[in-house]
């Protein structure tokens, strides 16, 4: 690695290898940049905008911007965390997120990120969208009320499982949703399986195994033990 291949992230020097994005370099160095749709295993999607940073004074998504030597990147400034908090509030009002009754509580990236960014209320008026649950599959429940449109299940099903069970389709706030590859639109009519990578990729509580409720008690879950900013790793979870 070239010695000059470093950039500044909140004043800290971060080394990178050419071709790495800002968030990849930061993650490899153990530094947390808040994010939701990005996953170290996959190519960046760039949709959540939670990972927005300021590069030499301009906003950009750290998951899609290539790291360049000498760039000055602002990450956890008050201004950026304020914007991130507003984006999180947008997520909370556009879907139906009721943490106390959600099996994913404590293991949920959205919830953990909201704690990390000190979000105390959804702030905006709730939209209460009508999003049906798909319980057709014998082993898996899909609760789209919690979907944050990160497309990780789409990518995992396509790239790891080779199945293309999901696709992100439709337009806008009301139209955009996960489409399922069957004429009925039901998961039961696909070849989706509990062992698929896509079955365990969901950062929130949409894709859940059936008959496995609360196997790990609340209080002993991933983010109950340690906040999300202290669990930066490139390894697959």
């Amino acid at each position, binding site marked *: 690695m070239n010695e000059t291949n470093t950039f500044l992230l909140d004043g800290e020097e971060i080394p990178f290898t050419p071709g790495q994005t800002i968030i990849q370099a930061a993650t490899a160095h153990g530094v947390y940049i808040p994010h939701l749709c990005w996953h170290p295993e996959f190519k960046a999607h760039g949709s959540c905008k939670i990972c927005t940073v300021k590069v030499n004074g301009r906003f950009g998504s750290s998951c899609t911007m290539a790291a360049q030597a000498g760039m000055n990147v602002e990450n956890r400034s008050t201004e950026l965390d304020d914007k991130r908090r507003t984006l999180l509030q947008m997520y909370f009002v556009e879907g139906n997120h009721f943490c106390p009754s959600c099996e994913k509580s404590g293991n949920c990236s959205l919830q953990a990120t909201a704690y990390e960014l000190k979000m105390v209320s959804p702030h905006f008026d709730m939209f209460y969208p009508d999003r049906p649950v798909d319980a057709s599959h014998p082993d898996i429940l899909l609760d789209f009320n919690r979907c944050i449109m990160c497309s990780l299940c789409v990518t995992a099903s396509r790239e790891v499982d080779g199945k293309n069970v999901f696709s992100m389709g439709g337009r*806008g706030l009301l139209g955009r949703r996960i489409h399922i590859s069957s*004429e009925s639109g039901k998961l039961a009519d696909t070849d989706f399986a509990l062992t698929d990578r896509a079955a365990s990729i969901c950062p929130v509580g949409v894709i859940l195994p059936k008959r496995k409720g609360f196997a790990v008690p609340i209080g002993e879950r991933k983010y109950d033990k340690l906040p999300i900013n202290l669990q930066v790793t490139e390894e697959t979870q």
Partner: protein
Amino acid sequence: MTDFSRIDAVLAHHDRNGTRLVQILREVQEQLGWLSPATLSYIAEGVGWPRAQVSGTAAFYSFFHTRQRGKYCVLWSDNITDRMLGNTDLMDAMCKKLWLEPGRVSEDGLVSVNTTSCTGMCDQGPALLVNYRAVTGMTLQRVDEMAELIRTEVPIAEWPAEWFAVQDNVRRTEILLAGNFAPGSALRAAHERAEVDGLSSSNNRSFRESLPHGIAGPMAMLDEIQRSKLRGRGGAGFSTRFKWEACRNAPLRADQERIVVCNADEGEPGTFKDRVLLTSYADLVFEGMTVAAYAVGATRGFLYLRGEYRYLLEPLEAVLARRRAAGLLGKSILDIPGARFDIEIHLGAGAYVCGEESALIESLEGKPGRPRVRPPFPVTNGYLDQPTIVNNVETFASAALVALHGGDWFAAIGTKQSTGTKILSVSGDVARPGIYEYPYGVTVRQVLADCGATDTLAVQISGPSGMCLAEDEFDRRIAFEDVPTAGAFMVFNTSRDMFEVARNFSHFFAHESCGFCTPCRVGTTLVRNIMDKIANRHGSPYDINELFKLHRLMQGASHCGLGNTACNPVFDTLNKFRPAYETRLMSLDYEPAFDLDAALSEARQMTGRDDAGAHFAAHSPDEANA
């Protein structure tokens, strides 16, 4: 029952190629009326794509119906200019005539009536689309007659032809609209300009390299474009020379070719100049595309035509056929062996965001029009990952004239930084709406005088994503260095309410957001809701602050230009026409958006009551003022 043989014919016509999905879906829908689940499954299997990808694409475009639609589908253009011409009352009258609720298909499956984004007929509104055919100049009488024709199920082909007449309304001409262009003249001039250098490439991969003049001709053409200082007419004003040269220099892999795309997805509300260029000046546009192909070495071209201009498809196909017959398109252009370039027309299907070049390319590839992550840029990785230039219709028309008359001639027109002319689409409160061509540098005041505008309060330039100018700014100039524009010029007189203008635009953006990134997907709807809250007299200064906050977030964090500019009309009108907002504010403190009386409306409907006792009257604006 689904008619699979007709789907097969469409699939065969497109070589069962999934990248042509948007065209396949449109053609199948034109034949079968809608895209049923069985139809989508059959198409998915036919092109070998995952079914979810096919249904996801179908669901993206407003003009695709994945639920059975009425035999007659009426969509009223709902731009602010249509509103000012009374479209709301006319649509209400039509719904009453047909016993319909807007947006619902009638019980007998006969008809649905709804609104759609601006259809590009602002100079001859109120406009609508009936089964995706453009109708202009709606009146109450036409509403009555149309409702009768629908009720008696008269086929649209038998409706009065004058309803479908679209006028050019060209009011002022300069170089582009002069109308004296001889097809082929620009190409010949470009070809003759290069000195014969004796180079003939042995590698005949592209138009450029296979020309007997070798590389000299295209280089000379690029030099003329540089001398002309031509900049993109879509609004951003990027240097045409830089874009073309980057594409020309982009490396080609095996089986790749360079692509020229003409962006005729004229979706910006208030803009209709491309419609006129493609109606009466199509040769100029296609010649410009061919000149571009010559300059960058492209062999394949697309015209991406917005779905609202479906009626232009056949006439444009005829122009292309004529140009092929005249040796101006095809395999040996101008009788030069190996000089090949051809143009294919792709239709959009009701998605404003496809005007963004990378979203447009996604759509050309059969996908939802979602703007790509950039870099890489289309000039190196565009259509099917090939080097691609995407330019505006007017840019290509200008490029044809640069080829014909030379760059110096072109650069002498306009201003130093903005050379050539700009076509403005003038609508709103003016005596003579239509198309006006000016050299760059003309003042807003001059345009207003020419189009017969009086008592002007404001001008919205370049559409909702552009700028709103107030009276004290009318001496500013139409130019990249002052007021850049894609062409829309909507005029509002002192009787108009600029809050309602901004509210109309906020509904437009909420409808057109592609939904990919969070700030735009949710933010455009939050802005729309706040504007509605203020309109419903539930607003407070708190809501004004919220609008500013959302503007700051969306402008920096959104994925593409749509989200970045979506708050512009709100921001501009808040700064320049603040009283239009403040007179509506309920109080100086916080007010909830929740309207208790409105919440009872469902109960009233169910019980059939509407008496005073069924209303909660404690929160009327009158009482609050008391």
